[in-house]
């Protein structure tokens, strides 16, 4: 009789679970294509590292360690749970797991129980700021886990039918509850990591498999099914841990953006539109101006424009959820519908007509080199290396000094180089990331043609945005290096003068040099070559945890709602680290940081300099 009962419990539990999963898969089947079966060895490697070894969890130490305990406890207890479920139906069933397993699972059960108690206390009483909601849900799940652990321990010792029944029913309730919210990640994270983004820096194409954009009736994400299936899997997988938002510079300065909330709002929209029971609901628009009322868009325009694409969120997510591609796809949808903030329309129009966002004359693009001995492709000169300057460094009065310093440092390192001149256009890096794919394509084609006809074998840039565009967005370019890499490779050819200053220096990692292109050491190597220079790190906010200066490219023109500038936060981090000078390696970082020094009232106490300017001074 009890066997029949437990058979029915198991059938009902598994049946319900299967039904829920089938329903949850529906949006993925209606979503945009996304080929993610390439490079399987790398994907398996990521699963072993991020999923099995929980690689990113200890970045938040206490939560991370507790999660690891629960995660491994679950893995260990999975066999015992399977055994238990069958045992209720088939008397005396055993998986013959052995004595060592019994000891291991006892320890695992107790460890999980202890971790769950600590997690519950932490959730209820010492909640970190990054946990903004879902406390009831979290406590309910912790309660279920504790019940599973205790009932298993009791049953194993006493053979109590009541304990078994509680375990059996809790087990299936827990299983069916997982896909209802943030604990879906228990099931999906393995897949989410396996299918995660492999190519950093790059942005997904508008639509996989489509090269002729004119043939598409609509660009970007406008309705829910315009997201790719992987992006919807991301929404399902978000554990609401809030690490992305905790590291998000836009969130820190109170711009209306929290990456975690994008996942959660979109997950809720998916659940509402594709309910477990009943017919598909009419979709809400994905992005737009209104918020709050029924039928309002899921996401707000300002939320989507607030992102600097710095990548801090993706670097932090323990299970490989991606945001930049979604943000770019959402922007593509808005651009296609003409919903572009007024502050961005003029620079976009000037980029279309003049190839730079200020509408400056093409013939003045290399004006910074007027009094220098620099080869110009526009004059028919050629060289093995091409210095691609990009708009900011070509035209901005202050940033032209970076171009001049770069030219001098290249000469000191005996690099034979040329500059394109008037036929160089903006790299389009941020045009693309602001969703104007057609304009990006136009700029890319013009630059690719100019670069090809220059016959250069290598490219050097001083702007990490140009680096990322030429290396990761363009196809078939010669190898591209950032000037910091060139300096680090050529330190033997450069004679460094000792620094005659007692100031303390710190290095600010530009997002598109560090996180997106994994270049952390070359700039530090270059700085450390200067005798007598004292360098400190902004601990906790350096390397892959660098804090964005405020963003480059079109972000310079965007007028966000924010409580303070990201640059000000960054400058204070440098001051807290004991630095007097911030060295960076990006013209946008330098602009934002120099402005922020003024805004923070630190003029005279803090200064900023580009790496290449510093090296030029000291060689």
């Amino acid at each position: 009789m009890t066997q029949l009962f437990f058979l029915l419990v198991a059938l009902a539990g598994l049946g319900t679970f299967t039904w829920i999963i089938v329903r949850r898969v529906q949006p993925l089947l209606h979503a945009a294509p996304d080929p993610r079966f390439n490079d399987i060895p790398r994907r398996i490697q990521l699963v072993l590292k991020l999923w099995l070894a929980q690689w990113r969890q200890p970045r938040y130490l206490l939560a991370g360690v507790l999660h690891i305990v629960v995660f491994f406890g679950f893995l260990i207890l999975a066999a015992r749970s399977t055994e238990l479920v069958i045992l209720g139906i088939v008397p005396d069933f055993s998986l013959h797991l052995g004595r060592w397993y019994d000891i291991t699972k006892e320890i695992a059960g107790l460890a999980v129980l202890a971790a769950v108690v600590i997690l519950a206390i932490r959730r209820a009483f010492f909640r970190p700021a990054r946990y903004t909601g879902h406390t009831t849900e979290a406590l309910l799940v912790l309660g279920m886990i504790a019940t599973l652990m205790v009932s298993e321990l009791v049953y194993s010792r006493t053979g109590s039918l009541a304990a078994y029944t509680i375990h059996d029913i809790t087990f299936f309730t827990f299983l069916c509850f997982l896909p209802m919210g943030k604990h879906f990640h228990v099931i999906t994270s393995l897949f989410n990591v396996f299918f995660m983004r492999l190519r950093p820096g790059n942005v997904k194409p508008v639509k996989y498999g489509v090269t002729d954009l004119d043939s598409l009736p609509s660009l970007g994400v406008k309705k829910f099914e315009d997201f790719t299936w992987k992006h919807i899997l991301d929404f399902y997988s978000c554990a609401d841990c809030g690490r992305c938002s905790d590291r998000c510079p836009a969130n820190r300065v109170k711009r209306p953006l929290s990456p975690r909330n994008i996942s959660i709002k979109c997950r809720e929209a998916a659940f509402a539109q594709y309910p477990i029971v009943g017919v598909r609901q009419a979709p809400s628009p994905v992005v737009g101006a209104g918020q709050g009322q029924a039928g309002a868009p899921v996401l707000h325009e300002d939320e989507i424009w607030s992102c600097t694409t710095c990548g801090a969120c993706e670097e932090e997510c323990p299970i490989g959820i991606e945001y930049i591609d979604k943000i770019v796809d959402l922007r593509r949808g808005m651009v296609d519908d003409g919903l572009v903030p007024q502050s961005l329309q003029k620079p976009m129009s000037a980029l279309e007509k003049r190839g730079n966002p200020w509408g400056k004359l093409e013939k003045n693009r290399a004006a910074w080199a007027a009094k220098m001995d620099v080869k110009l492709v526009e004059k028919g000169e050629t060289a093995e290396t091409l210095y691609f300057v990009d708009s900011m460094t070509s035209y901005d009065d202050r940033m032209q000094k970076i171009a001049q310093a770069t030219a001098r440092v290249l000469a000191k390192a005996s690099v034979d180089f040329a500059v394109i001149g008037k036929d160089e256009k903006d790299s389009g890096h941020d045009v693309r990331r602001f969703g104007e794919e057609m304009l990006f394509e136009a700029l890319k084609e013009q630059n690719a043609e100019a670069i090809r006809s220059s016959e250069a074998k290598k490219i050097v840039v001083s702007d990490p945005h140009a680096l990322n565009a030429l290396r990761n967005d363009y196809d078939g370019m010669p190898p591209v290096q950032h000037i910091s890499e060139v300096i680090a490779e050529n330190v033997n050819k450069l004679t460094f003068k000792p620094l005659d200053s007692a100031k303390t220096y710190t290095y600010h990692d530009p997002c598109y040099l560090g996180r997106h292109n994994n270049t952390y050491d070359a700039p530090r190597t270059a700085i450390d070559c200067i005798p007598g220079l004292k360098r400190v790190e902004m601990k906790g906010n350096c390397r892959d945890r660098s804090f964005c200066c405020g963003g480059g490219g079109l972000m310079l023109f965007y007028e966000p709602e924010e409580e303070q500038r990201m640059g000000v936060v960054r400058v204070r981090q440098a001051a807290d680290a004991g630095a007097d000078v911030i060295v960076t390696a990006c013209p946008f970082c330098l602009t934002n940081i120099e402005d922020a020094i003024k805004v923070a009232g630190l003029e005279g106490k803090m200064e900023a300099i580009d790496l290449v300017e510093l090296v030029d001074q000291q060689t």
Partner: protein
Amino acid sequence: MEILVCVKRVPDSAENEISVSSDGRDIKREDLVYSVNEWDNYAVEEAIQIVEREGGNVTVVSIGDAGAEEIVRREMAMGANQGVLITDPAFEGSDGLGTAKVLKAAANRAKYDLILTGAQADDGAGQVGGMLAALLDWPYASLVNRIERKDDATLRIGREIEGGNQEINDIDTPCVLSIQTGINEPRYVGIRGIRKVASLEVPVLDSAALGVNDAGAAAAKVRRVDYFVPELGAGAEMLEGSTEELADKVVGLLKAKGAIK
């Protein structure tokens, strides 16, 4: 509602470095790029929004050389239903009155309920809207920053008054309104939008088609005789001090001059 919007192709100061030519009669034009006059772009957006609310059609018309077709298409990509290009060497050098006469002829080719112009052009004198209304014998309101429907034959409009004050008027249709920037947020038009309307026909009209013989340089009664950038005069006060001191001084000056209270 049938709406005609008059648009002009101008060298946009945001996309050009404007300087005066050596003979002092014009700006240097060799390196210029052109776009639609900013005020006109707001007028087209407003017309599109009215039609989205009430139904009807938006027609854009531009007088210029063949290059002006580019901006007619851009406004069609925004959502204008039709475009008309008026081009004739005989119209070159028209003064404001000449331009208004040509536009009047264009307006009379169909039955419009409303004509919108920009309040002014980057390179203009802010006179065409009013003259066009007078030639048509229609009512006219300038510097309009709000348009609502009051009843079948009346619009309720807001006008921006010097000092940022607001005035509300009722105006009978058909009428001419000159549109101030800021009335709306014009939608973005990119390369893709323009490509979508590339195959649409834009009819081209000349003086014969319009029956206008009294426009152009010969008929102009206002003639430009000089063009220069004013010399930087004395009177500019350079503030000095730290950022905070500078901010305090600027606030003090703005208060003293009545700009802020």
